[in-house]
């Protein structure tokens, strides 16, 4: 019998991801639990932290709670039903797009076209409605256009092998140009009341828009954490070649995430047209950057494989709350832009710090 080679157990160091500002040190030494595999592993004693429950978006949640708390104290109007409903309407469309963008970011890609696609689908849906098409087909067509453009993005990335940045930058220009052409840069007015009711109505006092956004987030959360497709998205983002050799259909997954991002941008466009009661050709300009910012604030990594749907939605909420609070307190909107910029830097800075800490203690 060959002799089995066996080393004394060594202590390993694990890094527990903790919310920024947490007072406890991030280092915990976990002694080797199993010396002999035959013995059942001893239950490990450990402290449950916010990071364990909420994962990487915990930092975002803390920021959100602090912001909400501060605004509640600073402004009497903040915690009123009316303002909250307003806030929800402002944030909802944004959140939907951010969640779509997140899927692409998880594969280490980027979708710069969501803002333009949103503008195109919103205006087109409005045109169709004004032309007399019934509501449901118009909506489906609007969302369908977004989906189709998303597929085109995906094919450009997987078949033409264009870098995602370039492929979707091209689409950004194309979609915006198309909507400006088809509308002649004029606002489309006269959409039916019943269409406007979709985004402006409420169920049991809760704005429809918020319900839709939460539903989208919940579905994406489920897809990412509970389905094989979701796990494949993380695998592709982590290392596409490794994933391919482990039997992951990398191209299909990649095309699918761009398709979903396009589809959600399309949905966002339809909802925006419904909320405003008009198709505005310049709607959604700059949304792509805000969506990316929301993902990053919510803990997503632009290098892929890190981030969650709840995080992305939280990120969108934080930006919405800051804007809303700024309005209530009559703070100059330009300061708010600076604040959000700083927030992005702080969020990513903390993430880098964490990564570096685990890297140095691992060596």
């Amino acid at each position, binding site marked *: *019998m*060959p*002799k*089995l*080679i*066996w*080393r*004394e*157990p*060594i*202590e*390993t*160091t*694990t890094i527990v991801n903790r919310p920024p500002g947490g007072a406890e040190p991030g*280092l915990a*030494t*976990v002694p*080797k*639990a*199993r010396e002999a*595999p035959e013995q059942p592993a001893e239950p*490990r004693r450990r402290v449950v932290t916010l990071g364990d429950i909420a994962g990487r978006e915990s930092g975002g949640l803390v920021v959100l709670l602090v912001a909400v708390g501060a605004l509640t104290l600073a402004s009497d109007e903040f915690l009123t039903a009316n303002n909250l409903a307003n806030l929800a309407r402002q944030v909802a469309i944004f959140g939907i797009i951010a969640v779509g963008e997140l899927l692409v970011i998880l594969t280490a890609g980027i979708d710069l076209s969501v803002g333009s696609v949103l503008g195109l689908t919103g205006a087109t849906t409005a045109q169709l409605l004004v032309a007399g098409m019934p509501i449901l087909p118009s909506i489906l067509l609007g969302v369908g256009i977004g989906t189709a453009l998303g597929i085109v993005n995906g094919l450009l990335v997987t078949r033409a092998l264009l870098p995602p940045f370039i492929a979707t930058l091209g689409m950004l220009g194309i979609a915006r140009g198309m909507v400006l052409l088809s509308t002649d840069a004029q606002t489309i007015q006269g959409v039916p009341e019943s269409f406007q009711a979709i985004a402006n109505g409420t169920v049991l006092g809760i704005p429809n828009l918020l319900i839709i956004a939460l539903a989208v987030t919940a579905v994406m959360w489920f897809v990412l954490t*509970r*389905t*094989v*497709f*979701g*796990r*494949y998205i*993380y*695998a592709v*983002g*982590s*290392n596409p*070649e*490794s*994933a*391919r*050799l*482990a*039997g*992951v*259909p990398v191209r299909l997954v990649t095309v699918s995430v761009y398709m979903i991002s396009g589809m959600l941008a399309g949905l966002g466009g339809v909802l925006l047209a419904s909320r405003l009661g008009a198709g505005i050709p310049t709607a959604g300009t700059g949304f792509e950057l805000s969506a990316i910012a929301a993902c990053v604030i919510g803990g997503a990594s632009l290098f*892929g*494989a*890190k981030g969650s749907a709840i995080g992305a939605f939280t990120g969108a909420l934080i930006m919405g709350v800051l804007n809303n609070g700024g309005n209530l307190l009559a703070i100059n909107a330009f300061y708010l832009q600076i604040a959000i910029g700083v927030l992005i830097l702080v969020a990513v800075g903390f993430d880098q710090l964490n990564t570096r800490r*685990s890297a*140095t*203690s*691992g*060596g």
Partner: protein
Amino acid sequence: MEPVVELRDVSKAFGPVQALSNVSLRLVPGQVNCLAGENGAGKSTLIRVLTGALRRDSGTYEIDGQPVTTPTPAHMRTAGIQAVYQELSLLPHLSVEENLFMGRLPARKGIIARTRLRSHARKALDEVGLTDISPATIVERLPAATRQLVEIAKVLTADSVKVIVFDEPTTALTEAESERLLQHIRRLRERDIAMLYVTHRLEEMFEIGDWVTVLRDGGLSEEGPISNYDEDRLITAMVGREISSLYPETHRHAGTPALRVRGLRRFENSPAIDLHVGSGEILGIGGLLGSGRSGLLLSIFGASPIVAGEVEVAGKSVKPSGPRTMMSAGVGLLTEDRKVLGLLPQLSIRENVTIASLRAGSRRGLLPGREQVEEADRLLDSLRLRAGSYAQPVSTLSGGNQQKVLLARWLLTKPKVLMFDEPTKGIDVGAKGELYTIIGDLAAKGLGIIVVSSYLPELLGLADRILVLRDGAVAGELPGSATEEDVLHLASGTAGAETPPTREPTVAPGVTPPTQEE
């Protein structure tokens, strides 16, 4: 002789982990000091302390008898401590000359002095024998061995060269290329440069070393002139106990054919390859780097396109159209480059293990239930994976443990055939023995195993039969009892092999054919 560098009782801790404790190191001009030890024994930490990348917690550090108080990398370079790293530090898109003088390009008022740069670079390249390389060549077009030499040339351009640290310089090189590199090190020895040489290849230490310093678990295990050591004693010093036999027994009986490949051609006009492996059998594939071994495995696995050929798994014909098809047919491949072609670094150990089996265990697209995770955990337990928790990212593991994670990934798919490409590359001696035992056990359980390895003792120790490739064709087959010379003769096409080469050798002996694989 007086040491040029002396470290005494150096300690370094990372948080609660003591990476080095009371280690001493003496580097003497004109001597090659080999630093030996398993992964995690503290070799890298010691090197980083030496080069100033890390600050020691305690102990003394003297250069030419002068104490070094606050070492920084720049400071140590000026003091004459140079290093050649295993991960090449050259900038791939820039030219050789720019790389040689990066950071101190000859310039006048910010404009690069091209002619001066060219002539300096020429001189530096000639010094390491790269007389046929133009200084204007872009680095990424050079083969790995040449890049390694350029790296040495770069180190030698420093104003003061007292000590050169070589950190696994031959990992990416073939035998012939390594030999060339060792020649250069011998020449540097004649120039009275002190060298610290780190390698996993024990035979290299005996070839080049004058002195050996063995680390174990962060402490100094022993040191002495290399002539006092043989391979067994060195391994004992590294792992702290005797290893009777690294390789599993080879009394195996090949059962029914597990994998049969007929007339496989990877390109138009490339030679057709036939091979077969029975269940319970280990087939070794040898050959020089670039002989098409890795490519052959990738083709059988469907990851690399083929022009013609038939593949049969357990008697059933399969078309190798993609990794998914071959996976479902019962074939697994552990790739050579774990980082690039195997691991999903951000994902957890468990997620890495289950990724290939998700579809098989899934219902309606949902992730498989608890049972699959438990099965994965059991597999990892049985492979004796050492990790704090199976939920931690796989990137936190050492090389040997990462290899076990990938092995568990494929075992979970319940394969009939497992292919290993360089299974122990970058893995320390202790973990190597464990992996060999596991591979032997898998064959004993009836899997057909294919092992590609450049490390001949490993190939001969593991395999029941050895297929030798040369220039993408099968050069011959040898029994497991063959010698290293037999394999080398077949692989390089030189005379003296028992099986006559099937065709005229197209490559001169000792010269590496153009690289076709990464």
